[in-house]
């Protein structure tokens, strides 16, 4: 296995200095940094075979199409989907959820139907369902969470009814780091023939995702949160559902035959890929997934668990610091507040010390409301972070406390 120095040297930006201090990047929940191989693969697309995919008869178009389809196969294998037809490229998690919310809504939702989501969702897994519910006069039901930031399964079971048409839950809370019991959520829903969408935006990069093992009906994630480029995301859907859904957007490549009287649609997955896709980013994502596999997902899990344990211990030892999200089942994210100090003040000072963290509601206002706070400071770590960086964060927090008290 690669040592940490070698891993860090794979990511050019990690040796950057900010305000003259070494960058400590603890904002991986927002976006991850890119290994050199991903940057190189984007460069390679534009310098050696850039051409529109699935259209040309010429060599470059063929090559670009081939690489794009190879990337699709890499995604399929990475999440252990059954077929390449079940992997649709989108602009990101938000794009994927909007597509399902629209198409599923058009096909299956009637007045009075219900969609179940949790109190831990990112706005991207709330608003598209709200919009769908408004269009269809359907209802959104919310799985409540306890004070530790975990969903209350008994309450979830009670929410499911013959009116429930779909359950859409996040794999991991972006704001608190809690891992949700998605397996149980899916099993129970399936017991009542209710399909489940899993938002993997914060989950896919931290563990081994097996969509067939999980038995979810839809799984979505973003490329840029798993060391790939921005502007690319994935929508996995089991074929039996995708085949039933009308296309989300119309345009080129998604059609089979177009006349002014009637258009017939292309087969899966192209039916859901209207217009010129962001093929360079898809290819870059394929490279990023290769990179993750080369480090080893079990190794990543091990390294990140160590970071989480160390950071939890180190930060908990600071008297006036309170951690929000205390589940035993978490990814390497710590959300916290300092007593009587606004999260924004904390973030501004940490920034000046070279530490990039996120402050605010993390696009998850409902869970902040549930916890009765206006936001938190979030340190989201990943395998290229180190214990030494956590020590610098702890020292920085002590400095913040001394400045504001």
């Amino acid at each position, binding site marked *: 296995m690669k040592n940490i120095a070698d891993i860090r040297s794979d990511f050019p930006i990690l040796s950057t200095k900010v*305000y003259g201090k070494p960058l400590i990047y603890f904002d991986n929940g927002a976006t991850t940094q890119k290994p050199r191989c991903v940057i190189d693969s984007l460069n390679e697309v534009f310098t050696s075979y850039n051409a529109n995919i699935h259209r040309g008869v010429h060599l470059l178009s063929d090559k670009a199409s081939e690489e794009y389809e190879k990337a699709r196969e890499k995604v399929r294998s990475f999440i252990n989907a059954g077929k390449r037809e079940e992997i649709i490229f989108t602009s990101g998690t938000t794009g994927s959820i909007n597509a399902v919310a629209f198409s599923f809504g058009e096909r299956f939702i009637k007045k009075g139907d219900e969609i179940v989501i949790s109190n831990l969702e990112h706005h991207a897994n709330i608003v598209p369902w709200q919009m769908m519910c408004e269009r269809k006069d359907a209802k959104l039901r919310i799985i409540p969470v306890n004070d530790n930031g975990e969903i209350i399964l008994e309450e979830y079971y009670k929410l499911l009814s013959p009116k429930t048409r779909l359950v859409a839950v996040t794999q991991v809370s972006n704001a608190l780091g809690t891992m949700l019991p998605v397996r149980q959520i899916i099993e129970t829903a399936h017991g009542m023939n209710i399909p489940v969408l899993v938002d993997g935006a914060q989950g896919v990069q931290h563990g081994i995702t097996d969509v067939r093992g999980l038995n979810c009906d839809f799984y979505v994630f973003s490329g840029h949160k798993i060391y790939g480029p921005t502007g690319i995301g994935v929508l996995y859907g089991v074929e039996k559902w995708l085949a039933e859904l009308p296309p989300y957007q119309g345009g080129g490549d998604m059609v089979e035959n177009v006349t002014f009287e009637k258009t017939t649609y292309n087969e899966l997955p192209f039916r859901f890929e209207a217009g010129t896709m962001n093929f360079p980013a898809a290819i870059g994502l394929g490279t990023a997934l290769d990179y993750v596999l080369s480090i080893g997902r079990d190794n990543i899990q091990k390294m990140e668990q160590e970071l989480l344990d160390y950071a939890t211990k180190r930060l908990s030892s600071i008297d006036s610091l309170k951690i929000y999200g205390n589940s035993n089942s978490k990814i390497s994210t710590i959300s916290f507040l300092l007593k009587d*100090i*606004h*999260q*924004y*003040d904390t973030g*501004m*000072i940490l*920034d*000046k010390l070279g530490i990039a963290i996120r*402050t*605010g509601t993390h696009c998850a206002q409902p869970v902040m409301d549930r916890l009765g706070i*206006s*936001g938190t400071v979030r340190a989201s770590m990943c395998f290229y972070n180190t214990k030494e960086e956590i020590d610098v964060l702890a020292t920085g927090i002590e400095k913040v406390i001394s*400045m*504001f008290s």
Partner: protein
Amino acid sequence: MNVITVNQVQDSIVDEFSVFDDWMDKYNLLIDMGKDIPAIDPKFKTRDFLIEGCQSKVWLHPEFRGKKIYFTADSDAIITKGIVGLLIRVFSGRTPDEIISAELYFIDKIGLRQNLSPTRSNGLLSMVRQIKLYAMAYKAKMS
């Protein structure tokens, strides 16, 4: 009559900040300034006087007396309080015309804009916009 002009206040703020090279010291100065801002009457800490566009909450209240506008403010974040305090030093106790015609250069000169994240920077601009809007409203009322 105003003996000290808007620009003289801006210049003295620039001087006060130029003493420090390190941004930590500048922040300490901002934190201190936040402690001295004219306190807003708690009854004005309502949605009506809340400035949108900041990650932290900022309330700004104008009062029109003797043809001049006097501002009071508060924020739940201390650095933001320091920033709104600076704006109050520049703008409070001035006529609507003075406020409308003022060109703010101290923000760039002390490096506030580039040293604040865009969201915060937007908040700063929202505060300035709101102050100018109040001035225009009072001017319209006067005429």
